[in-house]
């Protein structure tokens, strides 16, 4: 068996473990931890160590071992990680996590490891550990003395099937040995004559002993994976003299209760989930998409049937339609992940950045469990990181400025996620100085950007999204080079979402990102244009109406506009835009039989002329670029109920192209 096939799973799990450690450590640093946090961090370190040992990544094993030892002391109350007198333990641990991440990357790609960083991390941890003995002696409470001198007697009798579940008793023994001096007696009564030996069966059993100061939880942990597959007996044996007032087994039992419970919880978590490649899920989604199309086709065909003669068939089709919809929702749900996956990247960044800038920042998050398509989560991380960086660098003031303004020294960044009618809204709020309207206007004037004197705040804030716009007084290595907000807006628009800024001087700025829940399915309005069917994303549609001839005006005889109530909107003939033959309506000037759909695109409203409104439907988005190329003004394609292809209109693209052609 080639063990390398399991490497990918190990690397991925390790990275998740490191993320869990990082967030746990950060929570501890900011005193937001609870009793469980340290256990989570410890377990993550422990399973990385176990995995690395199994695969022979010694550098990872060694470093994790140091980490684990430190964490174990903290877990048993022998060390206060937050206590500054014992050195900056959390900082050292976080650095070690970074180094571990590098080591795992190196192991994954077969690149050489960063020996200097590794050495530094080890030295830091060693220094902390050396510090312990003295400190520990002082802080060691009665718990340790109670069991000191006693020993753990462990009877470990594996079931014959132990190997079949992939467990290795040797690994367990090694792990126990890492906690202290391990006494081993091998019991080989069950071992048959060699000729009858089945290599797949476990015949050996062991009697083990460990020093009494090894925590019971550590022993339980070592056996966590084989609990159900062995006879296990763990007893505390007291030394000859009854020196402890309280019997030692009680101390062991006390230690067990809190630690053992989460252990079991985790085991069941593992049983209830599987790791599946995204490709498989995508293939499933594609297939369900096909099913939806076929179902829609059947539905359409059945509408011409006589309802009384075909009652059973129609009822069946109705049932099929419901089942298909449910199936589609369920399959789409597979791809949904809590937005926490994106948020969890930020606390570490905030911490480092705040430290570098000498600011005090508190990051609070809400609604992390809100679910979002995996593809969206991956694409939203970069814009979020950028926005958070901007907020800390530009938004939040230095502590002394904040004090002068009568605010708390520590600035607060609030990140929230919530569902809002088929959308997810992610908001980043800072309580910093807010946007400076005058300065933005001055910058705009310098760069020759057009802006009305009486522009609304919204219009002024919008300038920030212009390429190359920066109001930072000096360019730092963090931000201020003016590369950024326009990219953020572009990235988010590419996801079918949009960004908005709200700000009040002195009270802070809020960036609000609105995103569709998924990229794979779209609520669309189907319209007929020049003999073809097009889909308009419903999220962009504002309203549709039948225009009156007197409301269609022109500028310079060419640029057409539509008067809607008191607004004038650019009027665009979609058939002409897509160079399709136009319907006969042009033949009779003034006779506006066409419908107009008003869409919001790129921050402006646009009136699109279409031949007919056909209806609303959910469509499965297909990529046009798989076999073809990008088409301006088209975001993709879909397959209609009759099997034909319909193109999906990209309102932003249409708006931009329309502006370009107008300028030309």
């Amino acid at each position, binding site marked *: 068996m080639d063990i390398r096939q399991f490497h990918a799973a190990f690397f991925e799990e390790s990275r998740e473990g490191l993320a869990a450690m990082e967030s746990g450590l950060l929570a501890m640093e900011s005193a937001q931890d609870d009793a469980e946090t340290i256990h989570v961090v410890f377990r993550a370190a422990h399973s990385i160590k176990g995995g690395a040992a199994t695969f022979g990544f010694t550098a990872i094993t060694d470093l994790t071992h140091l980490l684990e030892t430190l964490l174990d002391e903290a877990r048993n109350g022998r060390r206060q990680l937050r206590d500054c007198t014992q050195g900056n333990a959390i900082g050292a641990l976080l650095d070690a996590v970074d180094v571990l991440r590098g080591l795992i990357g190196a192991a994954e790609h077969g690149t050489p490891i960063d020996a200097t960083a590794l050495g530094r991390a080890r030295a830091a941890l060693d220094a902390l550990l050396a510090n312990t003995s003295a400190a520990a002696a002082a802080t060691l409470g009665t718990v340790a003395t109670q069991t000191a001198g006693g020993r753990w007697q462990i009877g470990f009798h594996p079931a014959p099937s132990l190997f079949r579940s992939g467990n290795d008793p040797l690994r367990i023994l090694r792990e126990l040995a890492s906690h202290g001096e391990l006494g081993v007696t091998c019991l080989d009564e069950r071992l048959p004559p060699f000729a009858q030996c089945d290599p797949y069966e476990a015949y050996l059993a062991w009697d083990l002993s460990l020093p009494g100061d090894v925590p019971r939880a550590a022993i339980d942990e070592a056996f966590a994976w084989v609990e159900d597959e062995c006879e296990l007996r763990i007893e505390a044996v007291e030394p000859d003299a009854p020196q402890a007032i309280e019997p030692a087994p009680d101390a062991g039992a006390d230690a067990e209760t809190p630690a053992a419970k989460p252990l079991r919880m985790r085991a069941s978590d593992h049983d209830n989930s599987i790791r599946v490649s995204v490709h498989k899920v995508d293939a499933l989604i594609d297939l369900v*998409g096909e099913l939806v199309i076929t179902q829609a086709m059947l539905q359409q065909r059945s509408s011409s049937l006589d309802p009384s003669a075909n009652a059973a068939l129609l009822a069946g089709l109705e049932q099929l339609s419901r089942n298909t919809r449910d199936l589609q929702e369920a399959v789409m749900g597979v791809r949904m992940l809590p937005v926490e996956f994106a948020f969890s990247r930020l606390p570490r960044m905030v911490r480092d950045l705040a430290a570098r800038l000498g600011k005090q920042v508190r990051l609070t998050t809400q609604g992390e469990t809100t679910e979002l398509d995996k593809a969206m989560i991956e694409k939203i991380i970069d814009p979020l990181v950028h926005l958070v960086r901007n907020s800390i660098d530009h938004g939040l003031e230095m502590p002394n400025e904040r004090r002068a303004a009568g605010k708390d020294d520590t600035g607060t960044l609030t990140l929230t996620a919530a569902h809002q009618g088929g959308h997810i809204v992610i908001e980043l709020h800072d309580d910093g100085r807010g946007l400076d309207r005058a300065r933005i206007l001055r910058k705009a004037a310098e760069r020759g950007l057009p802006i009305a004197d009486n522009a609304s705040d919204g219009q002024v804030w919008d300038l920030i999204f212009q390429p190359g716009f920066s109001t930072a007084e000096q360019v730092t290595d963090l931000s201020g080079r003016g590369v950024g907000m326009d990219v953020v807006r572009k990235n988010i628009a590419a996801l079918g979402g949009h960004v908005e800024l709200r700000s009040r001087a002195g009270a802070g700025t809020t960036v609000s990102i609105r995103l569709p829940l998924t990229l794979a399915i779209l609520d669309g309005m189907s319209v007929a244009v020049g003999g073809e069917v097009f889909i308009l994303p419903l999220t962009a549609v504002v309203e549709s109406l039948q225009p009156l001839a007197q409301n269609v005006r022109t500028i310079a005889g060419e640029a057409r506009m539509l008067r809607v109530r008191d607004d004038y909107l650019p009027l665009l003939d979609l058939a002409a835009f897509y160079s399709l033959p136009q319907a006969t309506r042009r033949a009779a000037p003034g006779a506006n039989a066409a419908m107009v759909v008003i869409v919001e695109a790129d921050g402006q409203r646009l009136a699109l002329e279409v031949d007919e409104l056909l209806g609303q439907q959910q469509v499965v988005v297909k990529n046009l670029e*798989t076999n073809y190329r990008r088409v301006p003004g088209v975001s993709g394609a879909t397959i209609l109920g009759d099997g034909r292809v319909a193109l999906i209109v990209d309102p932003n693209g249409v708006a931009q192209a329309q502006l370009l052609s107008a300028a030309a």
Partner: protein
Amino acid sequence: MTVHASSPHAASNDHVPPSMLDACVAGGEFLTFALSEEEYGVDILKVQEIRGYDAVTRLPDAPAHIKGVINLRGTIVPVVDMRVKFRLERADYGPTTVMIVLNVGGRVVGMVVDSVSDVIRLSDAQVRPVPDVGCPIERRFLTGIGTLDDRMLILLDIERLMASTEMGLVMEEAA
């Protein structure tokens, strides 16, 4: 290898990797099809399937020879009409009009032709170099002329042709 010597693609500045130059020379099995009075051949390994001509959905901003896209079992596939591309006189759609679905360079493309004839095997000796004549098909897209009895087959380097920017199936590369 005479084909190489006589065709100008060694000097032409295109982006096809050199390994492909050798892949499409000389003999092999070819699917033959008719465009008007002429017979053409493409490497059989590039052909995915043959199907009747369906109604297409027209694409905006596309050259005339790109008819549009069809739904091929859930995949959106562009359709090109070779008769329009090669500037042949007639390009009408009847019951015998067929579409050869090609799988070239990881892309699926439908190619409309007048009719499909057969699959033939040509030895290296049966493939002759293309003489220097002016024709609407660029020389680098022709691998040779196949001779079988009294038939003359124009052998196309279909992979390179479909991947070329002038077919309009791929985005023009930024210069």
